[in-house]
């Protein structure tokens, strides 16, 4: 079972590997190099007690070694670093730099502490080096020798303290060292049950789900000030990828409302030339929010509101295709265009002297254009249409124009 912190580091490595954003968590001077964990310290140690012939001397050496390692762990923790795995080397390394670098690169851990302890009946000595596996260098070291008694313990503590301080001082000027955030990111959003993922839903880590408009994201020690990519996801909606330019901050990130992924839409509206009536429309999207087939039915009356006028009834059945012209499938403002064909059955009711008559007019629209403003689950649509009448019924053959000239304007709402 992977420890929770290791889990985070794996995530960090994934994010870094995918190269999302400029601010990958780990060292970035040379993108082609290994990516290192910079907040964990790998500890290597060896013990040479071959001069101690007796078993009691070897046991004493073990106690001093454990004490030294424990002292180092304690000081590192207080300094904000995580003591990582402790590896025992069978023999003191003949080439400690090479050993440290090799182990560090294997583990993808930049800082490697290599301690070598020698114990004899009259002498306890140790040598600790802190190596930079990324740069392949020794950043600090300390060694000491004393009588292997109780008086050696304070000396071990002092040595470890001095060493860590020297190391921190040495790396303080190192710009590649990143500070990790200590806060969880806060999110808010207008939609419920929106999942927030660090990275993407497919490969990232689940940060949480917005409930009652808010979410405290799962804490992950992301580097401060580095861009962070997140993805908002909800079933049936278009996911949205956001980049937090400064990474995790104490500012609440507002997740915008996600647009419903439309596979079918219905709507209502009316327009010039048919204001005394309404249009019911249905769209089916073979390619969601990209390409659709449309079926409109309009019922309206022509009436001049003058004495002796009778209403002139029309029913139009219109079929067509449409295509959204912009790249974003979840944009708020969308432009669509398409073609359509319709048939209009018109009935002029009988009057005192006139026998009722009816006719079918065929209209062809090579091009219609609509501009839509989308909310998550509905949209406003305005459409311009310039039909060509075949002249089969009441209309004469030719382009139809609104009374003021130009195309007819339709306005309506779409329910997703």
């Amino acid at each position, binding site marked *: 079972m992977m420890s929770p912190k290791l889990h985070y580091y794996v995530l960090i490595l994934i994010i870094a590997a995918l190269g999302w954003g400029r601010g990958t968590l780990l060292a970035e001077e040379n993108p082609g190099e290994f990516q290192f964990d910079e907040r964990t310290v790998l500890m290597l140690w060896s013990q040479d007690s071959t001069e101690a012939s007796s078993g009691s001397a070897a046991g004493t050496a073990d106690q001093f070694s454990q004490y030294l390692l424990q002292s180092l762990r304690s000081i590192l923790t207080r300094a904000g670093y995580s003591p990582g795995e402790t590896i025992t080397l069978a023999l003191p390394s003949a080439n400690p730099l090479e050993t440290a670098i090799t182990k560090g690169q294997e583990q993808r851990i930049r800082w490697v502490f290599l301690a070598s302890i020698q114990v004899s009946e009259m002498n306890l000595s140790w040598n600790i080096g802190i190596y930079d596996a990324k740069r392949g260098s020794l950043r600090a070291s300390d060694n000491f020798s004393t009588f292997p008694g109780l008086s050696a313990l304070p000396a071990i503590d002092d040595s470890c303290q001095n060493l860590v301080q020297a190391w921190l001082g040495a790396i303080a000027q190192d710009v590649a060292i990143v500070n990790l955030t200590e806060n969880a990111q806060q999110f808010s959003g207008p939609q419920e049950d929106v999942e927030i993922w660090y990275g993407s839903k497919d490969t990232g880590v689940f940060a949480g789900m917005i409930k009652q408009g808010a979410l405290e994201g799962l804490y992950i020690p992301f580097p401060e000030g580095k861009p962070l990519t997140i993805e908002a996801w909800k079933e049936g909606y278009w996911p949205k990828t956001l980049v937090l330019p400064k990474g995790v901050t104490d500012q609440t990130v507002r997740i915008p409302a996600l647009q419903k992924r439309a596979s079918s839409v219905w709507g*209502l*509206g*009316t327009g*010039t*030339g*048919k*204001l*005394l009536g309404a249009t019911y429309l249905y769209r089916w999207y073979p390619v969601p929010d990209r390409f659709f087939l449309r079926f409109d039915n309009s019922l*309206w009356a*022509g*009436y*001049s*509101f*003058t*004495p*002796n*006028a*009778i*209403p*002139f009834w*029309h029913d139009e059945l219109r079929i067509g295709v449409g295509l959204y012209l912009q790249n974003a499938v979840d944009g708020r403002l969308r432009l669509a265009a398409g073609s359509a064909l319709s048939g*209009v059955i*018109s009935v*002029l009711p009988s*009057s005192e*002297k*006139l026998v009722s008559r009816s006719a079918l*007019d065929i209209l062809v629209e090579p091009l219609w254009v609509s501009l839509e403003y989308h*909310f*998550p*689950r*509905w949209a*406003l649509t305005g459409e311009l249409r310039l*039909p060509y009448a075949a*002249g089969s019924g*009441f*209309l*004469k053959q*030719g382009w*139809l*124009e*609104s*009374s*003021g*000239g130009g195309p*007819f304007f339709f*306005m*309506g*709402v779409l*329910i*997703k």
Partner: protein
Amino acid sequence: MMKSSIRAAMSFMIGFAVLAINSCDLFKEDMFPAYLGHEEARISLSELRQAAGVPETARLETIRTLEIPALNKGYVVLTFYGFFSPPYQVFLDGKSLAVLKTFTDVGNGRFLMYDAGTGILIRHFNDILVLEPESLELLDTKTGVFGYYVSNYFDDPWFGIRKDTNSIFLIGMHSGNVSYLKVNIDGSNNWTGASASQKDIFFTYPSSDAADFYIQDLYIAADSGVYLLLGQKESDRGYLFRWNTAEDFIGDLSEGSAPLVAPTTNNDYKPTYIQVPKGKDGSGYVCRAGYFRTYRDRTSVIERYRYDTAQASLIDSFSLPSNFQGRAAFFQNGDAWVLFDEGKQTLHLMRGWW
């Protein structure tokens, strides 16, 4: 979520509807010709040609209406002209647009007159045919009223008005001037056209203005008032003159060389008049319901004006399709009118919108 979306959408629709209601004219717009809501009868020109025997080569020239009050009857009279066919005059029923009768060789001009004591008068070559008002059967032929001689040649008669038992005045255009022709009737009921006389309108000196005007319409109202509508050439206006009686009108017409309007020895004859805006196609119509003209600005409309006031004032208008091309004619004492849709090649009998 779904309910709130629908609620928001419905709110928008209601808002849009309220906005639209506030501009009621929008509701009058129809993708289809709005005039169809006033249609009472309809005939396509091809049907009409077939029924009347008018060939395709003959073009529809004039649309006139004629009312026979005594019979409660009306006719729509169409004239067709063509290079390769004789002129035709087709009488349609004023209530159904059914083709009733066709006359050929009707001669020049738009002459059409109903004389209560005589019948319906139309031109035929240089003759005048007298038709029985109900059956349209030929009752009589008055030959040689319009001769080829200078003395009685009259190239575009429009209307006729009876002065007395011995004379009828025909009003029309002759040589580009507003003119009249007196038809004398002798004791044997022989009709003879006198010489056509130009009629000046506002002045005679320094030159006649008869050529500056053309005839648009003539209306004899129920109160015996006579309205003559003249359009002014090269202008966007016309003049509507009113004489209180036919006698005044004829007296004014026949008053020597004096203009219609300018004061002369007998001012009793002189009309009152108002300016009216001309139609875009130069047409104008006057009848009981008002003065009508076609107008096209942003839209195509027929405007109706009051003319019983000091200035013509717009009463209302009737919308036509934006790209409408055609003509109208109005029954002068009825509520019906006729509309010819040139695009659809259909003739419509319409109910009045007033």
